[in-house]
């Protein structure tokens, strides 16, 4: 039986990889959980696309400020040292490569680092892209946070994305409930398998020739 860590455990795992002093954007949805696991004694500066660096946690009840929200339109706070700016400046930060890390959700990630996370391409679906395409191409490291398998059991790590792309060759690492994968020139490399998971099991689940990072140090 394969090991699957929880959404919170995965958020904590990602948080552990973010060095102090990083400028980080956490995408809408599950990635926002990462904020809960950033170490309280370290300074990591959160960016939200709607014009704030130094975003803090949700406010106390009664202290909700409708002018102070995150990209998911949830109420947040601003830390000492925060800065507000307009949308062109905010996206210049992303697009100019000034963010160290962004964490995004995904429908699919290809072994060349293509990301599909904005549209399933389903007929009749209302498309919405927001800042996903800008984040995907802008941050120095684009981390994906996702279950390894979709609800239908298919792998979200794929040879080539079937869903409409968000960005080409932009993902550097994928954190899943089964394992952590680096995107390398040779394809996905298993950086860390959780619990008793083996690379053979992961190969079976994904149908991909995964590189064993532990045995291919020289190869990469």
């Amino acid at each position, binding site marked *: 039986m394969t090991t699957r860590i929880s959404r919170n455990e995965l958020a904590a795992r990602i948080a552990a990889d973010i060095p102090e002093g990083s400028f980080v954007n956490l995408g809408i949805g599950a990635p926002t959980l990462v904020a809960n696991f950033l170490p309280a004694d370290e300074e990591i500066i959160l960016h939200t696309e709607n014009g704030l660096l130094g975003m803090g946690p949700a406010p106390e009840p009664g202290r909700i400020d409708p002018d102070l929200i995150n990209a998911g339109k949830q109420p947040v706070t601003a830390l000492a040292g925060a800065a507000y700016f307009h949308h*062109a400046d905010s996206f210049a930060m992303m697009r100019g490569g000034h963010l160290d890390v962004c964490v995004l959700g995904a429908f699919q990630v290809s072994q060349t680092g293509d990301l599909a996370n904005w549209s399933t391409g389903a007929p009749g679906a209302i498309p919405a892209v927001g800042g996903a395409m800008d984040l995907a191409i802008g941050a120095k490291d684009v981390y994906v946070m996702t279950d390894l398998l979709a609800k239908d059991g298919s792998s979200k790590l794929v040879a080539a994305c079937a869903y409409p792309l968000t960005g080409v060759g932009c993902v550097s690492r994928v954190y899943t409930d089964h394992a952590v994968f680096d995107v390398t020139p040779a394809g996905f490399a298993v950086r860390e398998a959780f619990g008793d998971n083996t690379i053979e099991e992961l190969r079976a689940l994904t149908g991909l020739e995964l590189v064993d990072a532990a045995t291919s140090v020289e190869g990469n």
Partner: protein
Amino acid sequence: MIDKTVPDVETAVAGIPDGATVMIGGFGRAGQPVELIDALIAHGAKDLTIVNNNAGNGDVGLAALLATKRVRKIVCSFPRQSDSWVFDGLYRAGEIELELVPQGNLAERIRAAGAGIGAFFSPTGVGTELAVGKETREIRGRQYVLEHPIFADVALISARAADRWGNLVYRETARNFGPIMATAAATTVVQVDEIVPLGSIDPETVVTPGLFVDRVVAVGQRAWLQGGTFVGGVDIEGRPLVADTEEAAR
């Protein structure tokens, strides 16, 4: 004497013609100029093209404007939200046209219009269906897509305070698209909490210089401020929490 203040929202939106392209500030509800939108609805202009990051929330503001069916087309990055039912219905019924633009391209295209840029090569959207049909080019080893400015006839935005020259300061993340939309429209109309005396805004802290502003109207203080200071007591939509508490006590 320069005085860009106007007495009421009706005057603020006067003259917006049918067929106009209207930029509307705000990111979700934050910074959305609801009073100006209501005035635009009352004004009655139709066949509009609206530029906004979203496509309305709930049944107020931009959503209420859409509900009038006077909007032919919307240019935005993120129409689909949990409370975007008005837009969703119109879109599914084929009653509104959608131009979907990645948010950074939207912002930069608006800025480009205000800054006199003819077009620019953007890193965003390359290789995606939102770049289909657009010119691409490799520059310094990276692929870019050519994006063009978005101009507007009118911008309706919200700021915290203005002086009579139209200098603006904003509040927190309600700033969002306001400063760039102000630069991209032939006529920029601003609703503010208050008009302050000329000289009372520190020149170092002006975010939008009056150069970009045509009309300013005071609509009163937002519910979560008192004397300009945050006091809270509202939910994320700005409704008093007291009512909820009373309901919960029943």
